[in-house]
């Protein structure tokens, strides 16, 4: 069956295996360490390269092809956090602050999940549309704004000053900045202008992603411990949530005309939970929310789930919705 093939190809890719190696390094208490500086450099590199590639492709994409997916993405950025907040409050009995904090994470997007999805779909023969990185930039902020707004409405706790600071920081935040910076440079330079730097920014991308995932594996393993005190509902939501949000993403992507690969990647974006932009914003605006919950869920459970099983699942759904063919 085709989706099993995807799962298998996925699980035996260097990227996923490097992530597992990182997990093991921490669990087996190896003294293997990669410096935090490498993490910083690689995450900038991945974001900037993604942006550059996206920008370069955006140049020769007709606007007509982009506006519907862009609207769909903004729609996801508003719907998913509301959905997540509602479920976490009603079914999960979480406090307003914790529910809003978690909703902000699930509404936003993980760039590494996006990269992994794009790489895997391309390797599986379903090349997604080239302008998707632009959508990532659109999906990052809105959910966080919606969730912080919600918390502010429901309590006085997310005090104005904190929220305002968090929003300002958000729009100049490093991940948006790197991605949008790359995008703009890609758009301005165009394919010809970008060519001299492709050896540096495009060719080693998959290898750099592999190395980054190894380091992320070590970080993830440490983060899982923070979930000890979390209720069982949160553990479950960290897996069923993504499936739900991801399905909405795939559906929406398909309905606005994205290809099999494109819809699957949009699904993966919707399913993914932010662990760079959202935590920084939430920590400032909602200091009473428990970081152990929101980071533990998004980095400790949802990220590995998406990386291994989630992406193939959204790909299978996308394939099915497109009538079983690329």
């Amino acid at each position, binding site marked *: 069956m085709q989706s099993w093939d995807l799962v298998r190809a996925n699980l035996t890719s260097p990227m996923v295996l490097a992530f597992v190696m990182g997990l093991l390094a921490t669990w087996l208490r190896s003294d293997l360490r990669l410096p*935090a500086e490498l*993490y910083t450099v690689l995450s900038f590199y991945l974001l900037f390269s993604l942006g550059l590639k996206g920008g370069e492709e955006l140049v020769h994409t007709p606007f007509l092809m982009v506006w519907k997916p862009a609207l769909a993405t903004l729609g996801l950025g508003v719907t998913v956090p509301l959905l997540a907040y509602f479920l976490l409050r009603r079914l999960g009995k979480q406090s307003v602050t914790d529910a809003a904090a978690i909703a902000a994470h699930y509404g936003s997007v993980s760039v590494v999940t996006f990269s992994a999805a794009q790489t895997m779909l391309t390797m599986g023969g379903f090349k997604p549309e080239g302008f998707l990185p632009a959508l990532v930039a659109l999906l990052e902020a809105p959910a966080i704004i919606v969730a912080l707004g919600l918390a502010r409405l429901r309590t006085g706790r997310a005090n104005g000053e904190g929220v305002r600071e968090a929003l300002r920081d958000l729009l100049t935040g490093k991940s948006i900045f790197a991605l949008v910076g790359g995008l703009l440079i890609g758009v301005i330079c165009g394919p010809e202008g970008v060519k001299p730097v492709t050896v540096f920014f495009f060719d080693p991308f998959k290898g750099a992603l592999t190395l980054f995932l190894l380091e*992320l594996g070590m*970080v993830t393993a*440490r*983060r899982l411990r*923070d979930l000890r005190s979390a209720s069982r509902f949160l553990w479950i939501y960290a897996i069923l949530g993504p499936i739900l949000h991801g399905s909405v993403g795939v559906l929406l992507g398909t309905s606005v005309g994205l290809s099999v690969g494109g819809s699957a990647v949009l699904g993966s974006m919707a399913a993914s939970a932010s*662990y*760079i932009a959202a*935590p*920084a914003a*939430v*920590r*400032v605006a909602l*200091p*009473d929310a*428990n*970081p*152990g919950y929101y*980071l533990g869920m998004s*980095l400790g459970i949802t990220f590995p789930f998406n990386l291994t099983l989630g992406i193939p699942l959204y790909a299978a759904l996308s394939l099915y919705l497109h009538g079983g063919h690329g």
Partner: protein
Amino acid sequence: MNLVELKRITIISEALLEERLLADIRRLGARGYTVTEVRGEGSRGVRASEWEGNNIKIETIVAPEIALTILAWLSERYFVSYAVIAYQETVEVVRGEKYV
């Protein structure tokens, strides 16, 4: 050479708070500061960054009254919600006049 007795305040906190803390201590009268990247563990151990234990240590040398103002402000504003610890010591500073 003249040595002046001043207070050195040390603040250890999650890295996220750096800019805020520096703005605060400057506003409350510090004329300089030194920041070191450190890592650590405490009683709470929560940290809103992928990199657990990624802390900063801020040291600032100030006059005793200002030290108390800063410590009081930190205690009130940050201690409840954030991973912060702060303490003061007496130090004998060369040409200490310039830090007052």
